[in-house]
């Protein structure tokens, strides 16, 4: 006959053994689950990044094609009409019939000539083939010349180091970003001076665009022009981040705005 304490002891041992066994299974399941979840999160993050890259690529392509189309339409339709109008005015000017109105006719002719010149500059600015053929430095320089020709702004463009291409895709993104920064400055900053400086380093590409405008305060979202500009700047930061670069913004009320972009040369290949 077994004594009572032995039975209790046996039950306790059995119960404890069972419990320990299940604790071991519990811990094993948790550890395996966490390991798999870490792998899943990594995969999800990678997929999200690839998806964002694909979306950006499509956005740039659509934007490029649209701009190209607009450029072609401007050149083929508006450009042609302005050229024809100029030809007619030249005929009238050379005929010398309307001597009283010669001043107005010459003025109109000059305005049309200027419009044609601006239209050509604008068309080149919209056409990414220009970027492909002449490179980032030429394209940005060309953009600044176009702005300077309005006689409203003074522009400054500095290039340090030997220029190289970041790859056509990256060049297009950077160029469009610079265009957007300059447009923001023109529309919202009330600046007079616009400056762009590019540094082509061995490992790092740096671009800084600044203006001497009114600047802005991030904590004031009520201004609709500011919020549009803010949305554009966030878009710029997002696009540069997708290229693996960084975009920093420095702006203070009355002190102008400075946007600095940094890209690794390795990541752009």
């Amino acid at each position, binding site marked *: 006959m077994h004594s009572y304490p032995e*039975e209790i002891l*046996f039950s306790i041992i059995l119960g404890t053994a069972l419990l320990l066994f299940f604790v071991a299974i519990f811990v094993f399941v948790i550890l395996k*689950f966490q390991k*798999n979840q870490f792998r899943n999160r990594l*995969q999800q993050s990678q997929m999200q990044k690839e998806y964002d890259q694909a979306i950006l690529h499509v956005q740039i392509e659509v934007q490029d094609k649209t701009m190209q189309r607009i450029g072609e339409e401007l050149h083929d339709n508006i450009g042609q009409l302005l050229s024809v109008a100029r030809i007619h005015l030249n005929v009238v000017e050379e005929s010398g019939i309307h001597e009283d109105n010669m001043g107005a006719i010459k003025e109109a002719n000059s305005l049309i000539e200027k419009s044609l010149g601006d239209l050509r500059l604008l068309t080149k600015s919209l056409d990414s083939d220009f970027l492909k053929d002449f490179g980032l430095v030429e394209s940005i320089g060309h953009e600044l010349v176009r702005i300077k020709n309005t006689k409203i702004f003074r522009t400054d463009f500095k290039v340090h180091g030997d220029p190289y291409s970041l790859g056509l895709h990256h060049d297009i993104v950077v160029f469009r970003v610079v265009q957007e920064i300059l447009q923001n400055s023109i529309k919202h900053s009330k600046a007079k001076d616009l400056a762009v400086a590019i540094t082509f380093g061995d490992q790092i590409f740096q671009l800084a665009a600044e203006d001497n405008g009114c600047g802005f305060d991030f904590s004031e979202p009520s201004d609709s022009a500011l919020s549009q500009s803010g949305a554009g700047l966030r878009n710029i930061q997002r696009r540069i981040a997708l290229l693996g670069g960084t975009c920093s913004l420095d702006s203070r009320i009355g002190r102008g705005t400075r946007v600095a972009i940094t890209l690794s040369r390795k990541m752009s290949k």
Partner: protein
Amino acid sequence: MKYLYYALMFICLMVFLYRREDLGKSLALLGPLLVCSLTVELLTDYQREVLCIKNWYQYHIYQPIEYILMTMIFYNNIRNVLVRKAMLWSAPIFLTTLVVYYSFQPASFNSEKFIDFQVESFFLIIWAILYLVEIVNTDAVIESIFRLPVFWLSFAVLLFYTGNIFIVGFRDFLAKYDVKMRDTLMIVPRCLNLIFYLMIIVGLLCTRTRKKSSSV
């Protein structure tokens, strides 16, 4: 210990009713299961304490109901098509087996011989393991395994039924040779019962609260 057991069952049911909206449809059958369980235990207690009758038939009626409800809960939470099919087929097979068994052994229907519990335990342990394997190997990103109520239910099932399948089988052997040992050994199933309901309560409480959306 009996009163603690009833208290835990009651708390489990109350927590389920309180959190039923957050639990969703996949655990809707847990409510009826808890009600059946509580009813059977109260009925047994009433028969023994008030009527002084020691019946077992109510457990044999409850066993298939418990199996079907538990299996449906796992069915609603497992994605593997083959496993779900096996679960669906197991219910009628289990019922048919019991009907045939009790037809040939009618005396067992009101006895302490729990063959139905042994068979039920075997299948429920398999479903619990399969669920855990699926959740551990899932490709989905899950915030925390501890917030899945079925995870806690699976572990409760594993712990309770694995412990009891061994002890119930061993108990019948000991009943012939050492009754004292058998009676002492029955402490383990009672403890497992308490842990079972405690884990279900934890599972029900850990579920993330569904945010209510406001319409504009």
